[in-house]
């Protein structure tokens, strides 16, 4: 008995030690928003980041160095670490919001509000810790739903921090920790890497894989930044250069991570320019393509991947077709002034799960809402990218499986029908296994959206309908971030918690969350029947 207890205790120690590692990295990353706050002379915000960073570091180091454990994580532990790790990141990541909201005097906060805008600073919504947690979770999971009603009014420091959390959360905090600390043994690293993302090995060692992923990711973000600065300068020559640079750097981070936080009041629509909306399509699509694909193209110089890579091809085709269909549906409904401009931007924003909004979805007809939910928000971009949703490759596999199943009736029963999928030839057994895995995931994903929709339906304010509930729930679950107006600081706390759970589960692809629930309810013993 003594041994079992000892072992149990050690499991917790091991998990907390890993979480400590994550906290250390989080603490250090607070330096960047701190610097931005100093540049803009926002000293209260700077203090807030300094304090939050300090708390994270102290906690992180005491857990990481204080706990001694001899056990290495097993597969189930890796999933538990991913699930709890992400909660801990969201909780600690909420600290700057809470601290800054509480220490910033009202006159200072009012200075953040753009001149001529007749509203109060949104920063004080974060005095409520639940709102802060929501914002933090929305940031790290790259969702983009926000409690800051008027984003510009929370100060440059916090604006930068919001976009920065999306950048960090996009590829994944665990991947970042692996890349920076590089301490774990290969086996542990592999388990953790696999638990967080639908990972693919790019090089023999996971640590180097994590590092190459981060290099690529930062490189792509810098590319988007340059592209946006130059593009904005050409399209809107009168726009202030410092605002241009600040906006572009934030939007580049939000686009590459497919997060969708914006520094502007009405997101990309604030530019009031058709050309600007077209300019922003490319960074979103770049964010929805898988990082291993970029690795093959940039590192291995396999340019044929552009048309050979199944996911890349289908993301681009889906963008083109879906935009046209959505535009057509909006045109038919006649409720939107610019159906094509809206249709194209919103479909791509939803499919890539970025979530920049240029239209009031609440006004849309039910048909268009259901279409964008089913064809874009649930589907999502490429696996291996920073997108949410079920990932386009899984949808393709399910379709392939369906055709395979129907075709098999035309073969004799002894014949072995191979499926060709994504350059691989899958045997019936392999295909069945793959299908079972994907179908289970998609099924639980839809159940989560369904539950979220029901909860939203019973807690949302008057004036909204079931299509709004479906849209909002799918948006949180798919880490999209488009909103029809249900998400705001006045929403019911129950619904807010529901969305926090949906974002968290959606980012981790649900299974780690279920493993955690199972551990809490039934412990780690296998169930034998």
């Amino acid at each position, binding site marked *: 008995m003594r041994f079992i207890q000892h072992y149990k205790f050690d499991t917790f120690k091991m998990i907390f030690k890993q979480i400590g590692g994550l906290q250390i990295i989080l603490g250090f990353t607070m330096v960047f928003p701190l610097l931005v706050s100093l540049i803009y002379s926002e000293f209260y915000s700077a203090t807030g980041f300094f304090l939050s960073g300090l708390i994270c570091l102290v906690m992180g180091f005491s857990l990481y160095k204080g706990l001694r454990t001899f056990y290495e994580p097993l597969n189930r532990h890796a999933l538990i670490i991913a699930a709890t790790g992400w909660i801990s990141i969201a909780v600690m990541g909420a600290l700057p919001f809470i601290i800054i909201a509480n220490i910033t005097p009202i006159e200072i906060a009012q200075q953040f509000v753009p001149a001529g805008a007749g509203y109060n600073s949104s920063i004080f919504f974060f005095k409520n810790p639940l709102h802060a947690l929501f914002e933090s979770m929305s940031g790290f999971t790259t969702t983009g739903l926000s409690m800051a009603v008027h984003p510009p009014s929370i100060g440059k420091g916090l604006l930068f921090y919001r976009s920065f959390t999306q950048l960090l959360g996009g590829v994944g905090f665990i991947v970042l920790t692996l890349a920076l600390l590089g301490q774990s043994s290969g086996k542990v690293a592999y388990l953790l890497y696999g638990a967080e993302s639908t990972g693919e090995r790019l090089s023999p060692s996971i640590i180097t894989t994590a590092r190459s992923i981060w290099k690529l990711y930062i490189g792509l973000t810098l590319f988007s930044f340059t592209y946006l600065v130059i593009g904005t300068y050409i399209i809107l020559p009168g726009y202030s250069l410092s605002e241009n640079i600040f906006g572009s750097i934030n939007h580049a981070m939000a686009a590459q991570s497919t997060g969708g936080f914006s520094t502007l009041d009405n997101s990309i629509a604030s530019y009031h320019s058709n050309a600007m909306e077209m300019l922003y399509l490319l960074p979103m699509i770049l964010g929805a393509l898988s990082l291993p694909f970029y690795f093959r193209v940039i590192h291995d110089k396999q340019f044929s991947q552009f048309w050979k890579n199944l996911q890349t091809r289908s993301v681009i085709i889906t963008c083109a077709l879906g935009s046209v269909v959505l535009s057509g549906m909006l045109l038919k409904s006649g409720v939107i002034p610019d159906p094509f401009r809206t249709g194209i931007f919103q479909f791509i924003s939803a499919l890539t799960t970025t979530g920049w909004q240029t239209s009031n979805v609440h006004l849309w007809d039910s048909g268009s809402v259901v279409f964008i939910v089913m064809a874009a928000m649930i589907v999502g971009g490429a696996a291996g990218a920073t997108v949410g949703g079920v990932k386009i490759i899984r949808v393709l596999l399910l379709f392939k499986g369906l055709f395979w199943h129907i075709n098999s009736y035309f*073969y*004799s*029963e*002894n*014949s*072995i029908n*191979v499926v*060709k999928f994504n350059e691989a*030839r899958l*045997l019936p*057994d392999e295909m069945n296994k793959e299908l079972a895995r994907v179908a289970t995931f998609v099924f639980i994903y839809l159940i989560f959206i369904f539950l979220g929709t029901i909860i939203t339906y019973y807690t949302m304010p008057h004036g909204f309908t079931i299509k709004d509930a479906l849209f909002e729930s799918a948006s949180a679950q798919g880490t999209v971030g488009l909103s029809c107006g249900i998400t705001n600081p006045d929403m019911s706390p129950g619904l807010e918690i529901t969305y926090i759970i949906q974002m968290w589960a959606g980012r981790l692809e649900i299974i780690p969350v279920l493993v955690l629930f199972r551990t809490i309810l039934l412990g780690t013993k296998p169930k034998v029947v």
Partner: protein
Amino acid sequence: MKIIIAGDGEVGFYLSTLLAKEYADITLIDTQREKLSSVEKKLGIATVLGDSTSYSVLKGAGIEHADLLIAVTSVESINIATCLIGKKLGAKFTIARINNMEYLVNKDTLDLHSLGIDELISPESLASREVKYNLKSPELTEIFNLYKKDLYVMGLRLGDDNPAVHNTIAESTRILSDNSFIIVAVYRDGKTIIPNGNLKLLKDDLLYFVSTEAGKDKVLEYAGKKSVQIKNILVIGGSRTGKYIAMRLSKEYNIKLIEKDYEKCNYLAKNIPNVQIVCGDGTDVNLFEEERIADYDAVISVTGNSETNIFTCLLAKEFGVKKTIAMVENIGLFEYSQKMGIDTLINKKMAAANFIFRHILKERVLTQLYGVDAVIQQFVVKKNSKIINKPIKELNFPEDALISGVIRNGNGFITLGNFQLMADDEVFVFSLPQSNKKVISFFK
């Protein structure tokens, strides 16, 4: 000429048998004592017991003076290692049997020649190539080229409806003859006849022709065969031969492959594109009905068991399949299977041996035909020979032998009775074994 053969498997034994007729100094290496002692009894050649990748074993076999080292064990890596070591120890020419298509396709990548392997053979691949050629003209039982694309040997069975039946060769060929083909052998009731113009042809005779490229169609016309188009093929047996056949043919034909072993089915399904794999027993009549065997134009049976292959092909004939090809490894079964009406036989050992004779040794004896005693020999006409500048029919050439073709200045010609030989002509002679000596002395 000293020859060392490593590996006393089917191919190794068959090669030893053939080579032993021509060359005196042959050594066979194998790891199994019983096998070697039976070879010694049957063929009377030297044997060495041991692993062919060992220095001492190779030295014991006399590798320093070997002109030719043929490694034909069933394990590819042993064959390659044997050749590499043998070459270093002094073998002049090395041949390795391989199973992996990779080596054949990417020959240049490794530059095997500089490593010490002069030639690669893959019996399975050669057999599948024979099948491919044969399916191009499915009316024939056999076809291969004797000299580049100029001279072909073709085999063909006479059916009921043939106008030539009950006529003599001279009568029947007159209508068509323009020096484009010649009948060189007739196989009837288990006996091979080298014909002269007076031989009367009968139903079910198996005729062998030598023809030029232009004569190929004439042969078919002569035999009155309706041309058959092959589109759908059923392959039975997923061994290496079956796999190569499926891979080679899948571009041009619709192929279904039946294999008994489930694991093997999975392996094939995973690795061969555009071929439908069916898991089932190739001797099961119900399966044939289920898979609609009657819809297929050709059935190729290549399981590891010769009897199964023969049986399957007979069954397919019964269902109305136009073309049947059976892999028969047991040479003793050739006569019966041909008699029973299987269209074409293939044999991995003979494919390998013929390849070695025809393309590597380039010696006098060129090739063996399936089930037929006649051999094809090649001679060069000497300058001062008494046989030049006379029509062939006046040469008093030995009985049971026939001059059938000539290469002159790089072109192939058919040699009918009025043809006159010239110096430096390369002559192909069809002959039965008993007249071999006379033929050889004729060209001295």
